[in-house]
Structures are given as structure tokens and as C-alpha cells.
């Protein structure tokens, strides 16, 4: 008994070593599955505040480019608003003409938008993450979509009170539901881990006709993003002779090395949609 105790005391550093390595591995493997663990990421309040302070200083250096981008985006919004107003007028006219017996219901999908600023960003890993300076207190929660004026960035992975961790397209675990513009077949976009400018689609239906230069947009099925937010354009198209799906290489519109101001999109109807879809899964 005494010798066992002696042995344990003499080799106590082995136990400390094993315990510390154990903690590290638990953190490493639980990070991927346990969504509540913001404490051990840069979305915790200490790390978030330090990053946000440093980002405030760095933010002044590219104000000019940011302003130009914002102006450009404003201009596009105004154009879109005009186009929609025009369209609405036409619909009203045709509705009056048809004098149908029912009135159109406004869409139940309630998307709301929030702006946020990127305070930390990585692009050189296989699993990159982006930290933004808004969190639960600003109505930002898990699985919300994040995009900027150029296109889709990613989805919110975890949110603490004042910060949120975003899983961008440049993360090997990220999969985005999307479709080719002017076509209703949906497909999913994945990143392969090395080239930050390109991502891949490998489940394009064979019967569809796609070509270089086709624009890839969000599908809107996942209720994370509204439909039609640009993602990228096809630069290479490979027809498969063996499987039912063709694949394509997509150049992403967003330059992930320079993202700064972003929009976060929430959906009022999401809980309802999710609950409905889950209830079906449970019954099966």
C-alpha cells in the first residue's frame, strides 16, 4: 500500500500531464458538437472586447474603401427599390383588371436585418471563423445568415451576449443550400480547404443546363437566408459520366480577407418552420 502511494506521489507529474491533455482533447472534440461553449472561443467577453478595441483602431485605415462600397450598395438598393415599385404598380394594374375574388396575402416570411462589424477573422485555416461585435442582446442567434454587399459570408455558429462567432463559407464544416439563378434546382456549396477564392458544388442535377458565368444564389429553403442573395459565379463546369450529378467550381463574390461591415439576417418564421420540419422527422 505504502509503495503504491509512494509511486503515485513520485510520478504525480504524469497524472497532471494526462489530466491537462485530457482537458485539451475534450475542448478540441466538444467544440464541434456542443454549441453552448462560447467561453472557449473569441466570442467570450474578454477576448471579444480586446479584439473589438484593436479592430476600432484598425477600422480607420480602410474607411475610404468601406465608404465607397456602402455608396455602391446604397445605389443598388435604390435601383432595386425603383424596379420593385415599378413591378408592384404593374401587378396592381393587372389585379384591378382581373378583379379576382381574393386578395393577395402578404408573405409570412418575416426577415429582419441587422448590421454588425467584423472584429476578428481568419482565412488560413481549414476551419475558419469570423467574430462579429453583435450578439444575443441585438437579437442575433444561432444559424442566422451573414452577408455583405458583395454576397454571402456564412451563418452564425454561436452567440454570446454581445458577440457572435460566424462560420464562414471558408470552413470545411460549412454547407450552404443554394441554386443557380433563373433555375429552380437546388444544390449545396462546400469549400475544400485550400483556395480562399473558390468553393465547389458537386450535386448539380445532370438534366439541368449550366455554363460558365452562371450566378449562384441562396436557395431560401433553409430559412437562414432569403432567396436570391448572390454567392458566386461558376468558373469551371465538369460533367460527370458515372454519377447522377455534375460538379462546378464557383468563384466566391466575397473577398474574405477584407470583410468589415456585414448584415445579419434573422427570420421570424424560422422557429415555426423548424418546428414543423422536426415534427415530421420525429414521426418517422
Amino acid at each position: 500500500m505504502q509503495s503504491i502511494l509512494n509511486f503515485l506521489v513520485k510520478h504525480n507529474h504524469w497524472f497532471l500531464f494526462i489530466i491537462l491533455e485530457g482537458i485539451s482533447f475534450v475542448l478540441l472534440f466538444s467544440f464541434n458538437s456542443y454549441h453552448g461553449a462560447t467561453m472557449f472561443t473569441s466570442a467570450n467577453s474578454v477576448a471579444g472586447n480586446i479584439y473589438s478595441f484593436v479592430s476600432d483602431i484598425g477600422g480607420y485605415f480602410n474607411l475610404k474603401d468601406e465608404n465607397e462600397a456602402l455608396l455602391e450598395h446604397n445605389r443598388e438598393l435604390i435601383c432595386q427599390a425603383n424596379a420593385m415599385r415599378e413591378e408592384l404598380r404593374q401587378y396592381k394594374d393587372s389585379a384591378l383588371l382581373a378583379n379576382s375574388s381574393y386578395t393577395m396575402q402578404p408573405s409570412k416570411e418575416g426577415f429582419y436585418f441587422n448590421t454588425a462589424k467584423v472584429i476578428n477573422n481568419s482565412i488560413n485555416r481549414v476551419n475558419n471563423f469570423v467574430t462579429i461585435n453583435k450578439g444575443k442582446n441585438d437579437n442575433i442567434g444561432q444559424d442566422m445568415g451573414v452577408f455583405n454587399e458583395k454576397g454571402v459570408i456564412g451563418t452564425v455558429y454561436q452567440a454570446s451576449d454581445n458577440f457572435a462567432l460566424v462560420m464562414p463559407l471558408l470552413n470545411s464544416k460549412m454547407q450552404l443550400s443554394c441554386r443557380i439563378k433563373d433555375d429552380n434546382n437546388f444544390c449545396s456549396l462546400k469549400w475544400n480547404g485550400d483556395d480562399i477564392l473558390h468553393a465547389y458544388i458537386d450535386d448539380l442535377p445532370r438534366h439541368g443546363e449550366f455554363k460558365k458565368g452562371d450566378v449562384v444564389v441562396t436557395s431560401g429553403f433553409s430559412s437562414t437566408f432569403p432567396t436570391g442573395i448572390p454567392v458566386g459565379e461558376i468558373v469551371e463546369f465538369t460533367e460527370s459520366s458515372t454519377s447522377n450529378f455534375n460538379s462546378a467550381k464557383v468563384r466566391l463574390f466575397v473577398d474574405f480577407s477584407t470583410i468589415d461591415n456585414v448584415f445579419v439576417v434573422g427570420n421570424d418564421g424560422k422557429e415555426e418552420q423548424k418546428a414543423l420540419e422536426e415534427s415530421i422527422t420525429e414521426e418517422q
Partner: protein
Amino acid sequence: MTSNTFKNIRNFIMLALAQVLVFSQIHLFGYATAYIYLIFLIKLPRHTSINSMLLWGFTFGIVVDIFGNTPGINAAAATAMCFARKPILAMFTHKGLPDDFIPNANNLKWGSYLIYSGLCILIFYCILFILELFTVGNIIPLLICIGSSTLFTMLFVIVTEGFSHNKAKA
């Protein structure tokens, strides 16, 4: 002893901030990242107990992990490096040395000091990149990452050592 602890804590905070705000953001050629906090661990006095070495390594690792969104990876690698440090240092300790010393280029001589720190850093990067890249399963980028990052960090080891070397002479 107390003043030493305070000095260590002050160095810890400064090195950790420099690491997460500056050095972790640099990825030379997309592969090499220098983890300069290893220099702190390499230069702890010889007779630092393994337990406190392990705790220093783990704490440093976890702080860098939290800021870098890589939970556990740095902590695991730095703890392992601290564990391996004592036997590695013992290989280069010769009789002319005082009982308790801080490893540097003066008392170990440049050659031994570089091999000693190089071995420690190599162990660290092997574990770090295997943990980070093992999902991808591609061996060539793994080796490039390990090699280039080790060399990049060694550059900072030499620079810090060069500075303190000159200071000791003057």
C-alpha cells in the same frame, strides 16, 4: 521568488497579447505561423518543477486557443512540449553549468541552445498541426506547415537570443 513570479506573470500577459494580436495574424506564405510564446516556456529555469511547467504551458496554450478559435489544440501541444522539455534539456546540460540556470546561448553555447530549442519547437508544431489538419489527411501540406513554422519561430528565438547576448557582453 515572489518578484520572479510577478515578472513571469507580467511577461506572460505581454507575450500573450503580442501573440494573439500580432503573431497569430501572420501566416507567412499561407503556411508558417510563429508561436513566440514558446520562447517563454523554453527559457524557464532548469529546476522549474514539471508540474508548474505543465501548468504554464497549458495556460499559455488555452489563452492562445481562446483568441484563435482553436480550442484545445495549442493547449495540448504546449503541454506536451513542456513535458518533453526536461529530458531534452538534460541532454545538453554539461558539468560547467551552475545548478539552476536559465537556458540561453551563453551558458549552453549557441549550437546546443539552438538544437535544444529547435527540438522543443518541432515537437510542439508536430502535435499542433497533426491535431489541426488531421481531418484533411494530406501529408505534404502538413510537413510544409511543420517545417516552415518551426524555422519561422526559430528565427525569433535567434533574434531574442542575439539581443540578450549582446546585452550580456556590454
